[in-house]
């Protein structure tokens, strides 16, 4: 904000800040108002890039879970993402619950990740960089922990969808969902 003309043109303020002038103050104030104004104008443009109302309106999906036999899983679309709905076998549940929390990278009990013991509902998006892990089909690679395996950079998830090995930082996310009755789940 140096202005070589200013000190000669305006009187110097007496005292504390030698060289600082009334004009310096006016310039700083003007610049501050301009900055706030620019930010105010920029905001609508920035905000226009966030999800729009129609995108937000599509935010819930109903799933009929009757066709999913024990040990089977289906993948449904929710907000453009895959959601895994798995009807786990008793052994799978057992396996997930037998793991001590100290062995987990992102510690969470299996109980905290499900609403009904056998039903595991998760966003099927690897928490590393967003690939869809394998493991939904009986023929898929399930990784070293018998759950899911992300082929992109090698993340292994267990039967509770918790990260056990690889670069992913956290467990597969649990979406907001509710059992609307015994045979239907609403996601979102």
């Amino acid at each position, binding site marked *: 904000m140096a202005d070589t003309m200013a000190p000669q043109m305006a009187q110097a303020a007496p005292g504390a800040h030698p060289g600082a002038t009334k004009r310096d103050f006016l310039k700083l104030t003007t610049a501050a108002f301009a900055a706030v104004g620019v930010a105010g104008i920029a905001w609508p443009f920035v905000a226009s890039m966030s999800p729009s109302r129609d*995108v937000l309106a599509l935010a819930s999906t109903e799933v009929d879970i009757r066709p999913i036999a024990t040990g089977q899983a289906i993948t449904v679309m929710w907000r453009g993402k*895959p959601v895994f709905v798995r009807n786990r076998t008793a052994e799978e549940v057992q396996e997930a619950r037998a793991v001590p929390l100290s062995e987990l990278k992102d510690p969470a009990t299996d109980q905290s990740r499900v609403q009904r013991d056998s039903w595991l509902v998760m966003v099927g998006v690897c928490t590393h960089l967003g*690939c869809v892990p394998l493991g939904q089909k009986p023929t898929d690679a399930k990784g070293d922990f018998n759950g899911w395996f992300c082929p992109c950079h090698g993340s292994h998830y267990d039967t509770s969808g918790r990260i056990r090995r690889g*670069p992913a930082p956290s467990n597969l996310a649990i979406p907001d969902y509710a059992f609307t009755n015994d045979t239907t789940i609403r996601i979102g």
Partner: protein
Amino acid sequence: MAIGLHDSQVSNPVLRWIDQRLPVVTMMQKEYGTFPTPRNFNYFWNFGALALINLVIMIATGIFLAMNYQPHTAHAFDSVERIMRDVNFGWLIRYVHMNGASMFFIVVYIHIYRGMYYGSYKKPRELLWMLGVVIFLLMMATAFMGYVLPWGQMSFWGATVITNLFSAFPIVGPEIVTWLWGGFSVDNPTLNRFFALHYLLPFVIFGVVFLHVAALHITGSNNPLGIEPKGPQDTLPFHPYYTIKDSVGIVAYFALFALLVFFMPNYLGHPDNYIPANPLVTPAHIVPEWYFLPFYAILRAVPDKLGGVLLMFGSILVWFVLPWLDTSKVRSMRFRPVARIFFFLFIVSFFVLMWAGGKPAEQPYVIISQLATAYYFLWFLVLLPVLGKLEKPLPLPESIAAAVLGTKAVLGGGPIPQAVAAKPMEKA
């Protein structure tokens, strides 16, 4: 000269009339005609001109593609197939645009490594260099978004993985990603904005290129010896000497370009991008375009998500401070016998990363990427600063003319054309 008019030397009356009012002819003459240019350029100095031509080609083909392209998830893939099959010469325009992106990166990588080898980033050309790094970053963004447009499997999953990089940042990361997408996954809003930006950014690049060239014309060009011209005996007028030398390079460049377009148009691409995008199925092996592989390898070399992302961005951002990391007073590696060896190893590390980035994320590729990443950063952060202090450079020639012409220069230089013929410019 009439009052208020530029004193034009142009003889053609029409051009003169324009030049008096807007001295573009005078400017072109000064900047590209008589512009004093070091007389000892080798062919590495062609690549700036080639990059500019390439940018023009991308913009020209891009505009014609945009006339037939549809930025909607339901139509994008089919509209590109229509361009390939039904639009007259659509296949040609698209293949030129597609391979043009690869040619652009080949040219720009050579241009950048030329600058690194001959120390073109050093004082007084630091800002010129930094503008170049800005251009490179904009090119990466443009090419990345362009690759998303055909909406094939690699488009979709490349976009997903790369936008998710931002989720690595603590707290705000996931918010940023949602904002970038305009939704909860890569989807139609994402495709729309990528198209808008893909159209815009090349023109921004054009603007930065203008600044890059303007800065160049203040400092003048560096040269293979890395010493400044001291007088007229060290330079040649840009035209015709370098217009003709650039033309030779342009012919070779077009030959390679045509070879790619007409004989192997999909060689550098990935076949999975001819499968329409499917948000539920990730291809078994995701790889970015070849020109991003070194950086992708750095990302995957680090077992930590945020660490990998930071190192990947850092590997390019470090170029910004290169002028201050290199402590040597000598520009050209020709006179730096020790640094030169480590420089070639640095180039090797870049190619090793490029190779490893295309391999699956498993051993031995991970450890190889880690070693190459370590050397990449070692070069910038340790070797360059230290070698500048320790190394004893070879003696620099007295002047460009003395180095190129030998004793003739000392005797006052001969008539220029003969002197040049006596010792043709070498290809370093």
